[in-house]
C-alpha cells in the first residue's frame, strides 16, 4: 500500500482546518478530500470509499460521534480518527468504544499526527494482509488432496460445495482409503467454522473406556493414572467440527452417550460433575453397512438418523479408474517435491498395471505404491518392477466380482503372512481395523 493508494477524508466544519490538513496530507502523497459536515459524507458513502477519516467531534447538525457510528455501520473497515478541541476524556473514550481508531486534540502535534497516520495505515495493511492470508488459506485447503476428474468424483465435489456452507450433519460413506477424512476437511475448510479446528477421532482405534475418555475428557483422579484434567475431543471441537471416523464401530453404550451430546450439546467429563456446553458441527464416516447394523440391533436407529442427515458416498478407486493416472501423477509430483528428486514419468507398462489393479486399499494404497516407486525408481521413468506388487491384470470379462477378487486377494495375503494382522495390513496398505472389518465382512478364517 503506497501513500498514493490511501484515501483520506477530513470532516470538519472549519474551513481552515480542512485546508491545513488537506495540505499536510497532500505533501505526503495521500489522496485527500474533505467535507464540511457529516451529511455530505453519508450521502454517497460506501465500503472502501475511504481508508481513513479524520472527524471533528463537534460539528453542527450531526456530531462526530454520531457520524462515527454511521460510518462503522456502512464501512466497518474504515479507520476513523476523532479530532477534538475538547480534550474531555469521556467523549474520547466514548469514541474509542464506538470503534474509533484513536483521537487527537486540536491543535495537533505534527509528530503525533504523523505517527497516528502511520499506525492507522499499518493497521489497514495488517487487516488486508490478514484477509489475503485467510483467502490464501481458504484456497490452500479448498480441495487439497482431493483429486479426481471422473464423473463420480465431480459429483462428490458438487455435494461438498452444496453442504459445506450449511451447518448440516454429514455422513461420509466409502471404503477405507478413499479419502473420507480429506472430504471431511474440505467440508470444514469451506464452512463458516473454518477458523476453528476440525478434530478427527478414529472411533475404531479405541476400546470403549478409552474412547469415552478421548471424546469427553476426564477430571483429575477420574481413574488410576488420571493425574490431570484432560479436555476431550468434543470440547476441543467447540466452535469447529468433530469428525468421527469409523463411527460404525462405536459400542452400544457409547452410542447412547454420543446421542445425548448431539441432542443436548452438553456433557460432563469422565469423573466430573461440571456441565460443559459445546457447539460443533458433526461429520462422521464409515465403511460399514450401517443399515444392516441397525437391522441387527448393533447400531441405534435414532443415532443413525441423527448422523445420516446428508450423505456423501465416495466411490472406491476401482469404480473410477479414470482417476488413477491423475492421482498417480499427482503423487509422483508430491513425492518428487518431498524427496527432492526429479519427476519421473510413469511408463506405459507400469500405468497399465496401476489401471488394472483392484486397489482394495484405494487411494491410500495407490499413494503408498507411488511413494515406494519414487524411492526405488530411477530416471527417466517408473517401471513395473518399481511398483510394490506384481499383479495379474484384472480381466474385465472374469466372472468374479470385484468383491470376490478383493476377498481372494486378502485371503492370499493373510495366508502369506500366517495371519499376522499387522504384517498383512501393512502389505495391503490398509490399517488393522479395516483389515479386521474386511475379515468380518468376507467371513475369512484361518485354515
Amino acid at each position, binding site marked *: 500500500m503506497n501513500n498514493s493508494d490511501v484515501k483520506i477524508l477530513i470532516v470538519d466544519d472549519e474551513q*481552515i482546518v480542512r*485546508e*491545513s490538513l488537506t*495540505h499536510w496530507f497532500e*505533501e*505526503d502523497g495521500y489522496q485527500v478530500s474533505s467535507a464540511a459536515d457529516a451529511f455530505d459524507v453519508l450521502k454517497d458513502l460506501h465500503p472502501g470509499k475511504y481508508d481513513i477519516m479524520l472527524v471533528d467531534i463537534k460539528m453542527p447538525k450531526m456530531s462526530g460521534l454520531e457520524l462515527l457510528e454511521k460510518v462503522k455501520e456502512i464501512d466497518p473497515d474504515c479507520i476513523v480518527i476523532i*479530532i477534538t478541541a475538547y480534550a474531555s476524556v469521556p467523549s474520547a473514550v466514548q469514541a474509542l468504544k464506538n470503534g474509533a481508531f484513536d483521537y487527537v486534540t486540536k*491543535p495537533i502535534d*505534527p*509528530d503525533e499526527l504523523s505517527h497516528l497516520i502511520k499506525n492507522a495505515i499499518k493497521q489497514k495493511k495488517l487487516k488486508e494482509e490478514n484477509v489475503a492470508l485467510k483467502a490464501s488459506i481458504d484456497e490452500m485447503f479448498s480441495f487439497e488432496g482431493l483429486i479426481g476428474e471422473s464423473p463420480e468424483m465431480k459429483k462428490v465435489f458438487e455435494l461438498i460445495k452444496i453442504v459445506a456452507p450449511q451447518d448440516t450433519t454429514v455422513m461420509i460413506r466409502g471404503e477405507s482409503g478413499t479419502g473420507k477424512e480429506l472430504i471431511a476437511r474440505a467440508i470444514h475448510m469451506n464452512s463458516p467454522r473454518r477458523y476453528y479446528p476440525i478434530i478427527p477421532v478414529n472411533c475404531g482405534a479405541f476400546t470403549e473406556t478409552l474412547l469415552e475418555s478421548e471424546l469427553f475428557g476426564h477430571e483429575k483422579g477420574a481413574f488410576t493414572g488420571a493425574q490431570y484434567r484432560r479436555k476431550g475431543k468434543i470440547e476441543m471441537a467447540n466452535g469447529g467440527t468433530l469428525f468421527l471416523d469409523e463411527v460404525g464401530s462405536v459400542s452400544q453404550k457409547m452410542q447412547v452417550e454420543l446421542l445425548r451430546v448431539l441432542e443436548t450439546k452438553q456433557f460432563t467429563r469422565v469423573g466430573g460433575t461440571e456441565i460443559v456446553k459445546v457447539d460443533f458441527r458433526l461429520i462422521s464416516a464409515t465403511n460399514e453397512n450401517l443399515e444392516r447394523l441397525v437391522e441387527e440391533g448393533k447400531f441405534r436407529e435414532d443415532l443413525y438418523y441423527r448422523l445420516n442427515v446428508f450423505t456423501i458416498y465416495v466411490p472406491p478407486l476401482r469404480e473410477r479408474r479414470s482417476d488413477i493416472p491423475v492421482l498417480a501423477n499427482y503423487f509422483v509430483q508430491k513425492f518428487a517435491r518431498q524427496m527432492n528428486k526429479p519427476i519421473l514419468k510413469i511408463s506405459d507398462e507400469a500405468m497399465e498395471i496401476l489401471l488394472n489393479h483392484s486397489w482394495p486399499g484405494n487411494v491410500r494404497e495407490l499413494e503408498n505404491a507411488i511413494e515406494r516407486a519414487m524411492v526405488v525408481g530411477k530416471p527417466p521413468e517408473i517401471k513395473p518392477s518399481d511398483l510394490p506388487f506384481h499383479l495379474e491384470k484384472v480381466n474385465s470379462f472374469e466372472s468374479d466380482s470385484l468383491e470376490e477378487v478383493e476377498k481372494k486377494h486378502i485371503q492370499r495375503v493373510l495366508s502369506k503372512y500366517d495371519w499376522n494382522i499387522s504384517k498383512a495390513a501393512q502389505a495391503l496398505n490398509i490399517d488393522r481395523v479395516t483389515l479386521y472389518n474386511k475379515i468380518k465382512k468376507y467371513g475369512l478364517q484361518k485354515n
Partner: protein
Amino acid sequence: MDQAALILLNFNAVSLYDKITNNLKQHFNLNSRTIIPDIDLRKFYSEERDQYYSTKLIEYALLNYSEFKKILMITDFDLYVPVLTFVFGEAQLNGKAAIVSAHRLYPEFYGLPPNDELFISRLIKEINHELGHTYGLRHCFNFECVMHSSSNVDEIDIKSENFCNKCLEKLNLF
C-alpha cells in the same frame, strides 16, 4: 539562471547567509535576491499561541513578490497552522512560495548548547525540503532523502540535505 526572492523575516543568523545562497544555486540553479521586507507582522501573529501563521505569510509573499521564479522566506519566528501545534515550514505544492522557520532548528530551543554547524545543516535541509515541494515533490520514503517527511528535529538530523535519485529526476524536469 532563474531568480528567487530570498526574504529574510526577522532572521538573525546572517553569518550563514552565503551558505544559504550557495545552496540555492547548487541544488536549484537559482540566483537569489535578498529582501528584508517592511511588514506589519501583527496580522500574522497569534497572541494566544505566540506564533506566526505560515499560510498567511505565504499569501503575503505571493501578493508582493510574484515577479520571482521562486520565493523563499526564512524567519526565526515560530510558525503554525491552526490545526497543528507548529510547523517547521510550509510550501505551495507545485507552486512558487515557501517559508521556513529556524525557530525550532536551533539546538538552544531544546536546552542544548549552540551548534552552528548542526543548525545550518538543519536549516539547509528544511529549505531544500520546502522548496522541493514548490517543484511538485511530495514526501519521499527514502529516509536519507531531503524530501523525507520530518515531524521532529531528530528526523531532520537523520536525513541528508540532498535529493535521492528519484526525487532528483523529478526535480530535473523543471
